[in-house]
């Protein structure tokens, strides 16, 4: 998996800052995030709650809840065009057709009052991908593609008649109905049981292989990263602290936060008396400390860490890390 890519990225996020106004000051939910997503790949966005992964995704589809939330800086280039410069109606044409978004909870993303077939067909009609006459056939075809058994019958059912896994398949059919180039999936399997989660992850991967779709997969679970992602960006306090091909993150994590996070995921095979843990807790995004926000919890802390945010260093082959303590000469450690 070489990251020396000849092709242009499908999505390029540059210096994105999304802030929220609150009574206790400005919450810098996303504070200088840059990454690319290439055609056909899955980029994982990993981090804990409040690290800014969901807000990053909402910014890409320009659905940051206003008026408190606002994209204050940066560029989001889709095929080289800055979508932050688009009008609301041009943006609405992109949303659901070129960029699709699925959220964590399959129950709340479907309307309980409408049959699932009508909901899967709606974006196809709205974006003129199907006519009234052939939409029914397209819906059934989509439901079949997400491996829903008896799709003709299922299309006439309501969401409450389906299990959680089935509903998440319906949501996938809805999102992929207009053949988007980019799918943003925000914790798509968190609400599901593990054996069903494995089915959905396999399904997303199969669909991706069939159609060359690019995907941003938000998760807090390194098990999912290992199963589904090609590259992974680790977020902490609104920034990407490390970005690397997935095998590198597992074999050579470089940032002390990534190392701590990987260490606090229990491993089977070695039973430890004490698990490694990161002491303390993530900072409040309204009061991010100066310098590196991880410094107060970091065991490799240097004097410079509390004074200045570290520059991004390249460790080779697409492995980037923002840490003063990492020596780039030694390939990561």
């Amino acid at each position, binding site marked *: 998996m070489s990251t020396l890519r000849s092709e242009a990225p499908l999505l390029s996020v540059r210096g994105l800052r999304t802030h929220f106004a609150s009574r206790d000051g400005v919450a810098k939910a996303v504070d200088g995030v840059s990454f690319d997503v290439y055609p056909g790949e899955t980029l994982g966005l990993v981090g804990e709650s409040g690290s800014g992964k969901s807000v990053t995704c909402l910014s890409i589809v320009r659905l940051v809840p206003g008026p408190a939330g606002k994209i204050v800086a940066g560029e989001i280039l889709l095929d080289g065009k800055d979508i932050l410069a688009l009008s609301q109606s041009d943006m609405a044409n992109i949303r659901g057709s070129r960029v699709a978004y699925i959220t964590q909870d399959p129950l709340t993303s479907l309307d309980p009052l409408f049959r699932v077939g009508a909901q899967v067909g709606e974006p196809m009609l709205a974006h003129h991908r199907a006519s009234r006459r052939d939409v029914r056939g397209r819906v059934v075809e989509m439901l079949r593609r997400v491996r829903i058994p008896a799709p003709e019958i299922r299309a006439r059912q309501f969401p409450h008649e389906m299990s959680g896994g089935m509903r998440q398949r319906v949501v996938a059919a809805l999102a992929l109905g207009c053949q988007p180039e980019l799918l943003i999936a925000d914790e798509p399997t968190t609400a599901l049981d593990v054996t069903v989660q494995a089915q959905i992850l396999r399904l997303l991967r199969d669909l991706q292989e069939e159609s060359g779709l690019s995907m941003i997969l938000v998760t807090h*679970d390194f098990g999912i990263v*290992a199963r589904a992602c090609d590259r992974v960006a680790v977020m902490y306090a609104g920034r990407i602290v490390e970005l690397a091909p997935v095998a590198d993150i597992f074999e050579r994590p470089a940032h002390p936060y990534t190392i701590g996070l990987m260490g*606090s995921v*229990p491993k089977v095979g070695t*039973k430890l008396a004490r698990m490694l843990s990161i002491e303390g807790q993530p900072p409040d995004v309204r009061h991010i400390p100066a310098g590196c926000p991880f410094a107060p919890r970091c065991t490799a802390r240097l004097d410079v860490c509390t004074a200045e945010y570290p520059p991004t260093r390249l460790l080779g082959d697409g492995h980037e890390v923002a840490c003063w303590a990492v020596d780039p000469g030694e390939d990561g450690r």
Partner: protein
Amino acid sequence: MTLAETQGGQPAVSTATPPVLELQGVSRHFRVRTGGLLSRSHAAVRAVDNVSLFIAAGETLGVVGESGCGKTTVARLILRDIPPTAGRVWFGGRALDTMSHDERAALTRSVGAVFQDPFSSLNPRHRVSTIITEPAVIVGKLPRANRRAATKELLRLVGLPANAADLYPHEFSGGQRQRIAVARALSVSPSLLILDEPISALDVSIRAQIINLLKEVQHTFNLAYLFIAHDLASVYHMADRVAVMYLGQVVETGETVELYSRPSHPYSRALLSASLPINPRERKSEIILGGEVPSPLNPPEGCRFHPRCPLAFERCRVEQPPMTEVTPGHASACFLAEELHRGGPQLSQVPSPDVSPT
């Protein structure tokens, strides 16, 4: 210790010291209305069906399974939140149903509990000092006058600063709240703690802190734990023994390391394959089951797992496989248990049946 099949008036496990807790063939059925609003037809949801378990002093039993498998109902049965429909629960070698009401109350009060959601399990209107000492005051183990001293000691045990006593739950993070919940559970000097998904709602970097805390206090007080979780990796670290549940029944039980290295039930294998951290280079060897967990209202005939099992054959559809010991202390309810224990068929090579869940 062996897991012998027993009936009658004796606990199944006979060792010098009786286990802290034992469940013998315990079932719990819930009646639900099946027809319309005015219908009189009822059906039984067999939430827990003929479950036998034991936990020795100072030991952790992990209970794993997916939603609807009966894990939480087991916890409620032990806490006497609900009585069993059938079977017996033993505490310290004595059957609960043979005790007087007062005796039973005294015993079950020596069980503490920590729940999944640290936000809804603490009363937002009470200060931490009240929250963590209230159970001990109510059961008469703590005179009101000693509350301050007890609060201080409990906070120290769970690694919270002494000034936490006068604060309210909303002033704490999720991990700190879970520490408060642990302090509250410890206040009654329990011999057994029920831990119902105590780390699932916490951030990854905080989970290890709580696991370490639970291990420390277990060691200090020789506590027995019933650790309910769906995250099999944390169970590996916490539990001495594991029981895997599916649709209200225990399908496999054994010592943790043994069970994880030689899972002898197809469901355990699939569950381990789907939830354990994997090497990103070895994605293709995963077992992907078809279908979803069926409704406990109408569980499948024969082995409850057979509609989703890649290895199911004719017998599985009609006959329920008994728990069979594959090695001392490790038992599985599968006709192919022995073969699976020896390494058996590679499930990732066998296609799963295509089940359409309803």
